[in-house]
């Protein structure tokens, strides 16, 4: 038994791994693996990201980020009235606003499913720590972007959320006052505050693309798009929600009042529910420690990582065909020019720091030119055959 196999067998989440695989197998029974959404769990949030970009484009065209400025030709005086105009007067404006809102909620749900699946099936540690950590950062950004979307509506809920956020930022030591001034774009809520919210909402949304690029590093063939049939169902889910739970704004924000109650969207606004139930210092402590613990999961769950036996290229057998390079899931193989005198143009080399010792390259090579030190080619092939035969 290899060290990696030993870790997998003794993993504390092994029962959950079994449960996840059982659910996936049950889904395969009536959807087949081609359309099983669990096999596209990473691509699902990304699909909703494209929906959010497109629906947001229309909202952006009509949105006015001010609290008291005028656009009198259409009797639009501030952010709230522009949102009201989009919702009640623009053809399909109300439903596109609904699509934007529910695609955001759906993105949070799919991100959660993605994270749980990765965690339960043990796909987050060692060489995949980068995916886990960048995923946590992306999830935090998604949460904050969604929250800024709620500020933009500029109804009574927006006002409460803005004041709660500014208060929470201000309570932080050292950076608090500066953070509050950055958030409000000044010392208090002004027209510039909503401009800032809009900038954060859109600017960070595009930053997500950079974050996704980091997220995909070390992945040879990330699945970026679910098949069209799955996309149809994902879209339908949002559209039916738009009809079943139509979006309305609250009352227009009034800076001279302090609303005390508001509807809460549990997907994005749960931190505010926490903040309202505890002192601000305790809130930050819980959030920072909680985020730290989740980020450290790859190291906390398995403190002693197994030693990796990296693949080795048999130089006199390698033909430079690139099969191992194409099949390696972790971009651990690099094709370099073959040494002078070789009858082949390229030679495979292994980047030890990326190799997981998984043996995929050994299975891919048709020339017995790559091996794992403790797992010879013949043994890998016989294991694969045994697994296939067991599966029938």
């Amino acid at each position, binding site marked *: 038994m290899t060290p990696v196999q030993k870790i997998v067998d003794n993993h504390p989440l092994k029962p959950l791994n079994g449960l996840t695989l059982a659910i996936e197998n049950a889904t395969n029974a009536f*959807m*087949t*693996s*081609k*359309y099983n959404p669990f096999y596209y769990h990473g691509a699902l949030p990304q699909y909703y990201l494209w929906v959010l970009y497109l629906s947001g484009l229309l909202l952006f*065209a*009509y949105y006015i980020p001010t609290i008291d400025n005028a656009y009198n*030709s*259409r009797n639009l005086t501030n952010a709230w009235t522009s949102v009201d*105009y989009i919702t*009640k*007067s*623009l*053809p*399909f*404006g*109300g*439903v596109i606003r*609904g699509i934007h809102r529910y695609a955001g909620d759906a993105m949070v749900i799919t991100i959660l499913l993605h994270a749980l699946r990765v965690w339960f099936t043990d796909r987050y540690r060692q060489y995949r720590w980068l995916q886990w950590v960048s995923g946590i950062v992306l999830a935090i950004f998604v949460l904050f972007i969604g929250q800024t979307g709620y500020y933009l509506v500029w109804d009574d809920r927006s006002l409460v959320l803005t004041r709660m956020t500014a208060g929470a930022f201000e309570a932080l030591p050292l950076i608090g006052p500066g953070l509050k001034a950055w958030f409000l774009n000044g010392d208090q809520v002004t027209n510039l505050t909503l401009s800032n919210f809009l900038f954060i909402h859109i600017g960070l949304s595009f930053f997500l693309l950079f974050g996704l690029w980091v997220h995909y590093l070390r992945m040879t063939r990330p699945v970026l798009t679910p*098949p*069209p*049939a*799955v*996309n*149809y*169902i994902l*879209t*339908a*889910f*949002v*559209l*039916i929600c*738009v*009809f079943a*739970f*139509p979006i*309305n704004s609250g009352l227009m924000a009034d800076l001279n009042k302090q609303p005390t109650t508001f509807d809460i969207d549990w997907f994005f606004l749960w931190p505010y529910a926490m903040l309202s139930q505890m002192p601000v210092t305790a809130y930050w402590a819980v959030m920072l420690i909680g985020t730290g613990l989740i980020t450290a999961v790859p190291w906390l769950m398995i403190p002693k990582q197994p030693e990796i036996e990296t693949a080795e290229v048999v130089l006199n057998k390698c033909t430079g065909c690139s*099969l191992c390079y194409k099949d390696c899931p972790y971009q651990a193989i690099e094709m370099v020019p073959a040494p002078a005198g070789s009858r082949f143009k390229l030679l495979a080399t292994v980047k030890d720091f990326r190799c997981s010792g998984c043996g995929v390259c050994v*299975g*891919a*090579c*048709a*020339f*017995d030119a790559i091996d794992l030190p403790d797992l010879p*080619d013949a043994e890998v*092939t016989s294991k*694969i*055959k045994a697994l*296939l035969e067991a599966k029938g």
Partner: protein
Amino acid sequence: MIKYILSPKGIILLAFAAVIVSVSVLMAWSELGFTGTLPDWLTDLTTRLGLYKPISDFFNSLTPGMGGDLTKFLQEKGVSVNPKSTASLGDYGYILFMGLALTVAGIGIMVIGKEDAEEKTVLPVKK
């Protein structure tokens, strides 16, 4: 280059680009009230296309009374539209219909595509 532009693909691309530029400019024209001798084209177009209709028309044509029920459902949920605009509760009807159609289409594709879904694992032949 000229050969490409005059090809069917080039003509379609040019026409597509022209439509995008025209709609982008006209959108601002309509919104800013620079109507001049042109009508408010967005309102005019949606009216001509029949989008400015209550939800009941379409759904009543499927089942009598269905449109009224859906309208009542939406109004109870607080949905309202500006009576002077081209937006209507019918927008929500289109979205519901689109959602149901996409569900049926998705399930249909999955059923038809099942035959191609069998995985084939081929082990390389060692030389």
